[in-house]
């Protein structure tokens, strides 16, 4: 298992991160590259909680936004260095995750809807004018003091590497196997000796951590934003669609999903926006109808092993 971990890490994670480390030198649209990195991390965060435990987090952006505001608040009020603030962004999301652990008692659509409601609640809490002194309420934050896109991009890359390491671990450990067992049948998993509740909470907090860190890096990179920007449901929807499109419970599935779908999104979205919605919609419908287990199932159906 350790050998597979090292193999997957060096054959998938290292090349991907290396490519995104070099790209800014040869490609000018740095914001686009940054967004790719953020979505790669978020799609893997969804993979951790949905792919390995079966909870579909419609409100995943709640952790992202909480991280962004965690970053902003400690920068604004405590003058925290940006890297420390990113770590705090992750911590804030984990604390929010802890607060929301009762949601894990729900299953299926009930969980997804409750999670969505929770994300909206956090948004309205942050955007509440009564909290203007702390969060700047609906008026948004401006963090000119920490503005440093190059460092923020590098940090996002580090977060992506960490996230991928978590997924590679899940894919190659009995811990990850036990999580999948819980996803398949919690009663049987308990009879295999798996502490079901603890496993779910750990996966939940790990996925919260990923989104919180990504939110912190995002806040650092853009430095000016409003609550609606960092709590936009587009983050949840995109991350979920990308992960599902490629195929969850694999390492490469969500990566393929982001590269193809976010690539297409930016390609058609800019050049021929009138066709974009149509093509995007058809692509997703086709996938759900013909490849419900994602693109990787083209290979797994043939009996090929997909890492």
């Amino acid at each position: 298992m350790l050998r597979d971990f090292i193999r997957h890490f060096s054959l998938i994670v290292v090349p991907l991160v290396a490519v995104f480390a070099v790209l800014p030198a040869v490609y000018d649209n740095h914001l686009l590259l940054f967004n790719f990195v953020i979505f790669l991390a978020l799609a893997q965060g969804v993979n951790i909680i949905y792919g390995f435990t079966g909870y579909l987090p419609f409100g995943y952006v709640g952790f992202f936004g909480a991280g962004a505001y965690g970053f902003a608040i400690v920068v604004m009020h405590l003058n925290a260095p940006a890297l420390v603030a990113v770590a705090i962004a992750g911590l804030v999301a984990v604390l929010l995750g802890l607060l929301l652990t009762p949601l894990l008692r729900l299953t299926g659509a009930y969980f997804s809807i409750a999670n969505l409601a929770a994300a909206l609640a956090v948004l309205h809490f942050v955007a509440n004018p009564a909290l203007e002194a702390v969060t700047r309420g609906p008026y948004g934050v401006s963090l000119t003091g920490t503005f440093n896109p190059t460092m923020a991009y590098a940090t996002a890359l580090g977060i992506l590497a960490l996230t991928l390491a978590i997924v590679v671990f899940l894919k190659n450990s009995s811990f990850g196997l036990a999580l999948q067992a819980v996803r398949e049948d919690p009663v049987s998993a308990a009879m295999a000796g798996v502490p079901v509740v603890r496993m779910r909470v750990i996966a939940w907090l790990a996925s919260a951590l990923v989104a919180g860190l990504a939110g912190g890096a995002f806040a650092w990179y853009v430095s000016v934003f409003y609550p609606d920007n960092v709590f936009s449901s587009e983050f949840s929807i995109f991350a979920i669609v990308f992960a599902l499109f490629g195929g969850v419970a694999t390492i490469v599935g969500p990566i393929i999903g982001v590269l193809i779908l976010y690539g297409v999104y930016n390609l058609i979205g800019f050049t021929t926006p009138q066709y974009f919605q149509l093509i995007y919609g058809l692509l997703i419908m086709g996938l759900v109808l013909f490849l419900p287990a994602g693109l990787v199932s083209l290979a797994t159906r043939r009996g090929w092993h997909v890492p």
Partner: protein
Amino acid sequence: MSRDGVLRVTDLVKRFGGFFALGGLSFHVSPGEILGLVGPNGSGKTTAINVISGLYAPDGGSVTFDDAAIGGTVSHKLVHLGINRTFQVPKPFLSLTVRQNVEVARAYGGRRAGATVTDDLLAEYRLAEYADRPAADLNSVQQKLLDLVRALATRPRLLLLDELAAGLNPTELDWISSKIKALAQRGTAIIVVEHLMGFIAQVTDRVIVMNAGKEIFEGTLAVAVQVPQVIEVFLGGEHAA
């Protein structure tokens, strides 16, 4: 370990709403013993297994294992104490491979799995050739055997088998009963829930006959079939054969 049993169930009560699925059930089973739990449909056999294996907390009475009260303890802790089971409707991890199904139990079963090697167990229960296929590819008899192998991978001292034999052909029945007897000979206490009386006669040392959530008879099957009360609940039902 107490003299008269690894597991002792006393006045066990389990309610679903106002309905008493178990209404004061008492029995015990000793190490190395095979106890049959029989009774008509809906008499509470599966519910008894569910309570003993931690799926439900009891609403009354007690369950002790090695003299320690275990009523209401969560399943994975009971597994670590040495209790395991199979399911009447098998419950494998469908998308995981057959081998992975067992590996999870070996990794998390917690009882110093030591000697049990997954592939040996799979071979012993005729699942070796499916080891790398998803459990969903197995037929229902094979899925039941996988349930059993998963349970055995945790090296239970008390094994609860809920209608393991249903659906087996006569040759397979002989084969599985010799397996169950061999497990008991190594000291495992085993509770066998089954409607097939021939099978019960073949494997059990003693039976408990249940009706409406209570035991109405305790002793050997040979004696049971002569007790009027047993004949009434049983032979009156559809399982006369």
